[in-house]
């Protein structure tokens, strides 16, 4: 009952645009927002840990796979027989340097993502209200 009354009253108030903005203000619940972050020492440390995670990220294909694959452009590794498609590595195995191919493109993309993470920490930690 109380809820219905609340709705009716906010509805009546809504007829004046001003207080409608509260009703339409819906932050995402359950997830932290960058705009309100970096308030405690713990939060800053967590962001730093996130920067370290950007060294290899949480899976094999972003950074690790290209590192191994780059050796194919040398005579240390050959691309072998596999029933899976080889198109991802074909040009690299022929000593090319095609930036558009998946693994190379992933490598650069994720390195830049790591740089952004570090920049965020560098920009925000000095202003954080910590000792």
């Amino acid at each position, binding site marked *: 009952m109380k809820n219905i009354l609340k*709705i009716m009253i*906010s*509805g009546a108030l*809504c*007829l004046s645009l001003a207080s*409608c*903005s509260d*009703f*339409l*203000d*819906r*932050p*995402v*619940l*359950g*997830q*932290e*927002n*960058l*705009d309100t*972050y970096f308030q405690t020492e713990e*939060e800053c440390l*967590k*962001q*730093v*840990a*996130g*920067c*370290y*995670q*950007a060294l290899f990220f*949480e899976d094999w294909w972003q950074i690790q796979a290209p590192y191994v694959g780059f050796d194919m452009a040398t005579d240390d590794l050959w691309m072998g027989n596999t*029933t899976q*498609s080889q*198109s*991802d590595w074909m040009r690299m195995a022929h000593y090319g340097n095609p930036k558009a191919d998946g693994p190379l*493109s992933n490598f*650069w*993309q994720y390195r*830049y*993502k*790591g*740089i*952004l*993470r570090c*920049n*965020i920490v560098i920009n925000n930690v000095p202003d954080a209200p910590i000792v």
Partner: protein
Amino acid sequence: MRKYLIFLLLIIPVFLAAQNKVTITGKVSEANGNEPLTGVTIIEKGGTNGTISDIDGNYTLSNVTVGSTLSFSMIGFTTKEIKVGANTVINVLLEDDSKMLEDVVVIGYGVVKKSDLTSSITTVKGDDLKSITSGNALYSMQGKANGVQVTGSGGPGDNPRIIIRGVTTINGSDPLYVVDGVPMSSGTNINFLNQNDIESMEVLKDASASAIYGTRASNGVILITTKKGSKGKTQFQFNASLGVQTISKPNMANAATYEKVFKQRYINDGNEQQALDNWAVEGVSSFSDTDWWDQTINKAAYTQSYNLGFQGGSDKFTFSGSIGYYRQNSQFDVGYWERITGRFNTEYKFNDIVKAGIDFAPRYENWDDTPNLFGAVMKMDPSTPVYRAQEDWSVSNPYNNYQRSYHNQEWNPMGSVARQNKHSDEYGMIMNPFVNIEPIKGLIFRTQFGVNARFRMTDEFTPEFYIDNLEKNESAKAKRNSDHWVDWNWANTLNYTRTFNEKHNLNVMAGFTMEQFAKYWLEGSRDGVPSNLKDLQYVSAATGEQMVIKGTNEYDSYVSYLGRVMYNYDNRYYVTASIRSDGSSKFPAANRYATFPSASLAWRVSEEAFMKEQDIVSNLKIRAGWGRVGNAQISRSAYLNLISAADYVYNGDRYIGTAIGQIGNNNLKWEIVEDLNLGVDVSFLDNRLDVTADIYRKKSNDMLIQKENLMILGYPMWNGQLWTNIGSMEAKGWEVSLNWRDKVRDFKYEVGLNLSSVKNVAKNFGTTSEILTGGFFNDYIIKNVPGGEISRFYGYIADGIFQNQTEINSHTSNNGDILQPNAQPGDIRFKDLNNDGVIDANDKTYIGNAFPDLMVGLNLRFGYKNFDLVSNFYGTFGNDIYNSAKGGLYAGTDGQNVFADAYDKAWHGEGTSNYYPRLSYADANLNYRTVSSFFVEDGSYFRCKLLQIGYTLPKKFTKDVDIRLSASAQNLFTITSYSGMDPERASISATKDDGTYNVLESGIDNIAYPNPRTFLFGININF
């Protein structure tokens, strides 16, 4: 003297009596146009005193008692009754009885007579939907509403894809559903509604009709109105229907043919020894011959539907209600969908001023998810038996007893069916109270509060089993999702209708609505459940380390102000204008609101004086409309910068970390679609032939797209994608409907033909030059580019087969370079379109279009005495399908099973085939791994959606009760040249995670659940 006195005495009573009796004269005319009506019967009620109007519509009736009632009646007109008062001249206007014109059409926030419509709106009556038995009312609407493309998917509870008048956004094609004035949240599956409860469905096709719904109306609006009661004796309807569904079995190879194909692939590559080595299986001396389709897929799957409806009421109180049950089983041993619905709609008239009512609609649904195993069943190795040898059986875990495929990596379909274990229960309730206040005639205030609440619990259990190192699950996992949705909508409208000086008809409406859609959910899963016992299939029983626990609340809210003016002069010249201002919580504060105006005009030419002379055209209306509508189908957090988890492990210790997870665009605003519509409605030959034609153009601006950004920026989203308003799409099309109804003595017939066509063109994707979709072996099938139609296939042109080495050598560029040096006889020849001596990406071109050139719906209704026949047909022409599955089914790629004729059809010598390439394990020419016209087929089809014969038992046996028996076939036959299982299902794509279809990726056949053929027996009883 005495004689005179007696005479006087006698005369006085006569005189007195004569004072009460009068002679009434007058003229009877037609209400529409004032034409005099000849032959109208005028009777003084309660007696036999009567007369008939003459050629000029004039009548004279004498000896009419003052205070009695005169009744004016004539066939084709509504009878009028007038009380005789002081006036002795009574002129009467009679209203046309013709159903067509008096029909009332539901529009946004109101109703309007069909003859007064100025926009493009199509009505489908509930009775027309009833002939098809289905759990989803939209499926029954297929082909009946022109301009609405309904494409069905066959699984139990599946939602069909709906496109109204073309595609102008990549962010979802679903229209807005409004049920009894309450808009549903986006992505709603309308199967929660009992089809038998529906009185009518109105499709608002152009913006001048849908702009009153502003937000989310850019894909069109479908208004659904449920049955209401009416005063009189309570009416009951009972409908029952029982059916059997079947799917045509494809002709797959048996074990012997499979073996030939399997070995030939190596032999053709010069590896005879490898063929024998790879075919042999250690420890197996004889192979089986399993028909996987017969084993896994049931010939018959049952469907049943029962419904009891009732309506009735008195002057003050009217009600309408129903109880219904529907169930559809899948063709597998697991998988079904069941729904029980109840409804009670009431309306109470307190007095002439206040009226109130409430609708209750509770429901309970439950289902077991249907496994999608049609592909696996067709690919599985027929030489593998269903079960492993009996001596190896496990007593404790029967899931281990299935045989691992001998010759490929497919998982045993019988095992997959046995393990399928995902069940959902959903309880829902819709409540819709309203109050209508009419303080003075013509001024109505209405407030309505609609609530749609539902609660769903889904339990999924993945059992522990071991069939092979590559076909196992080491740890049993239990998962539970608990989702509550509570949506409410509060709508207030003030409506004023008034006629000035008889000719000026005005209706003004102003409104204010508030709505909120909320989802409260919790998900928990954990592995390490100790066994597969039914009693332990719950998260609490799990003991493992892999735990996922998440849950939150999600809200979307809207505030809207709306207004509309409808004016017509003498029911001949019409003007309607509306405006709506919406605010949404999905956009940053600066851009929350957007305004959506619309205007439309109509001219009822048939009401003009010069049109009254002829009687060929009985109704002619020309209308034009323009409007703007909006679309907000993006994630609610698109404008926010959010943090995600990023834990780091160092020196064996785990450090909790966070990092930026999403960058938001705080300039986001609404996507706007603007459209223009021109239409004509004509009725000929006494309303026996109705023709409606429309032509339209819809264009979106500021379309919301996930635009890729430079990698240097390091945005956390894939390829730096950020929601941006920077796209544009356009849909242009036309629609023509013809309806002919007539009768010849005892034979009644009705024929309806709907033709429509639309072209969807992408105008602008911002700085993105193309959107590629439909992955196929490291390439993409579909390329969407600005300036081109969407969902077109882009690939190489397959130009026949090389029959011998000479042909390979002569396939050169102008300079004599051999284009395909690695090809062998039997491989596909690809065209070098730009003649540059190399076959590469520059030789690709558009090889097909997933969207049709023409869509046809044909609806027939015949009646002869007690028999009736209903038939609906639907078809699309000019659309192509990329049959990706065809490759494997003819090539045996990765050891999968093939069609029975694959061995014979494949090229095996000069002249044996110019279409199917040779079998090859290595496939060095990439015959089966290249996006080419080899896979593109004509997807045109014309399908008999329904053939139903009904017989109504003669009245002399059933007295007051109407009993009708019927036999029907749904999807009876299909005329198509497409080689796959179902051209209808293949023309739409797989569903995304949220259940919606991606229109940019249409027309790729990945063997999804086809639409089954269903045979039904039904009974309808009205009493």
